[in-house]
């Protein structure tokens, strides 16, 4: 990989400078537009949610009252729904994705790997509305007729599997989110694993390690923070996922331990209510939920990027 640093001092001719100056100005403005967009988002969301922030203060996060008739708004059910659905989805998706990524890069024949990897990446590009379509027309009816009755019958003594089989439910949301984040985590983990230097593996193999021992001792520790970053990036995607979840979660703002019952998430309530919130306070409350969502995803993504950068950067640096 060639070095990228280019320092180009502007030439002495006047014409050249003016052309370069304009060019430089335009590119600078456009580059900074990213920061402007980010700032604009934060500013706009904050100012629009001020009425709700003033009215409810910290209670907004702890109250589970969401009552447009009385003008009382608390975001707890949505926070709860978002946290539970994405954390559970991630807990299921991460081991699967890491396993699959290791299998693709380290275990299976190279030819098969180069065939599966792009396939998984293609699947990461399927729009969420299509996952939702499948979720609501195929998966939810299947859950209601088969999976949920089974869980309720055999594991109904646990609070997580009590209630009626609704089909659309927290369980459906967890499953659809899992299916959606798996391709993302898998492909990033795979990229991270590819940066592991061959020398690391060769050293382990030379010591007589088995295939799995090589992976456990030489490959995984090296890519650990990158893999963690991939998982957190998946979390960010799951938290912000709107359409597919809205279509299968049942849209009911209740806090229930049971995965069988319908729930609600932050992006779903925005999708359902934002265009029609009639009172100022209702709009502001939705804006505040949006603001929370924005801040949470900013933090999650920042964390994930730092972790992934730390691996891919140092690997790139090491190779050069």
């Amino acid at each position: 990989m060639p070095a990228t640093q280019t320092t180009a001092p502007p030439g002495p001719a006047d014409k050249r400078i003016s052309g370069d100056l304009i060019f430089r100005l335009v590119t600078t403005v456009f580059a900074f537009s990213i920061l402007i967009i980010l700032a604009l988002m934060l500013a706009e969301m904050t100012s629009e949610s001020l009425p709700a922030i003033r009215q409810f203060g910290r209670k907004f996060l702890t109250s589970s009252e969401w009552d447009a008739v009385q003008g009382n708004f608390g975001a707890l059910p949505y926070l709860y729904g978002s946290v539970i659905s994405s954390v559970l989805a991630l807990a299921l998706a991460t081991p699967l994705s890491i396993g699959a990524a290791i299998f693709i890069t380290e275990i299976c024949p190279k030819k098969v790997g180069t065939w599966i990897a792009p396939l998984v990446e293609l699947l990461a590009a399927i729009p969420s509305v299509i996952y939702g379509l499948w979720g609501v027309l195929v998966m939810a009816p299947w859950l209601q007729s088969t999976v949920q009755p089974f869980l309720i019958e055999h594991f109904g003594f646990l609070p997580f599997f009590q209630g009626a089989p609704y089909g659309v439910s927290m369980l459906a949301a967890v499953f659809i989110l899992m299916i959606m984040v798996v391709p993302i985590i898998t492909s990033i983990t795979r990229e991270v694993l590819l940066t592991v230097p061959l020398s690391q593996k060769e050293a382990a193999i030379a010591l007589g390690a088995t295939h799995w021992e090589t992976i456990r001792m030489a490959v995984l520790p090296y890519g650990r923070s990158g893999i963690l970053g991939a998982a957190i990036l998946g979390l960010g995607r799951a938290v912000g996922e709107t359409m597919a979840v809205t279509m299968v979660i049942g849209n009911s703002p209740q806090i229930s331990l049971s995965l069988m019952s319908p729930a609600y998430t932050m992006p779903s309530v925005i999708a359902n209510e934002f265009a029609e919130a009639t009172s100022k306070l209702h709009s502001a409350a939705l804006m505040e939920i949006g603001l929370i969502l924005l801040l949470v995803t900013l933090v999650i993504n920042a964390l994930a990027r730092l972790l992934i950068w730390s691996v891919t950067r140092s690997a790139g640096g090491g190779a050069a």
Partner: protein
Amino acid sequence: MMKSVFLRNAKNYLMTGLMLTATLAVLIPLGLIFFHIMKMGMSSVNLDFFTQIPKPTGETGGGMANGMLGSLMMIAMASLIGLPVGIFGAIYLAEFGGSKVSTAIRFAADVLSGTPSIITGMVAYTLLVVPMKGFSALAGSVALAMIMIPIVLRTTEEQLKLVPGSLREASLALGVPMWRTTLKVTLRSALSGVMTGVLLAIARVAGETAPLLFTALGNQFWGKDLTQPMAALPLQIFSFAIAPYEDWHRLAWAGALVLVVVMFGLSLTARYFGRTRTGE
């Protein structure tokens, strides 16, 4: 390494088996989704789907032609806004930016591309729909452009960085001004890579639904006017999927098939461009 070889080998096979299982567990649901889209979509898609607009509720037939046209127009408009900003912004990062500022922008772009797209819709609603007093395809395009910019910026920058410095220096030494060097030499030699990024960004926004909910709104007729509400394929799939009409479900599956085919087409083309680049 005092454990017996037998135990170590057994563990090796066990873990290999587990990872194979994980791979299958990843691929099976995705395969199922793909299978259903193919099966339901193939049996639903017909000529009407590409030429007709939706029928009033309860009447059978009709298509999603207006949604496809609307999606095309909004993607074109979004590209018009988003691509120059993304590409020129990337030039700044690759050619001019001081390292601290560039890192900050790079980081912001990565973070921005991870924010939920529904937030973009909310912001576009307050910034454009309310002041302009009307839902419009334009507001939808701006929301989509906001999603495109960080993607294009990052991929373009990566590609520009791959261009050898000697190429630039040669051009500069010939007395070509910096801006022409960048456009005619640097950008051109990275063009296929840049195209990959552009296509991926288009593929990403082509399926976006959430940012259009409060901006483009939808339209059951042909929409030709960017200042008016406009139909979009993903929006139609969403509203038809949750409706109770069998015939609308049929159209939603057909729409999903078309969208997936377009998506895969874009991704494969992008991959092709990417490959020619690395093949150089």
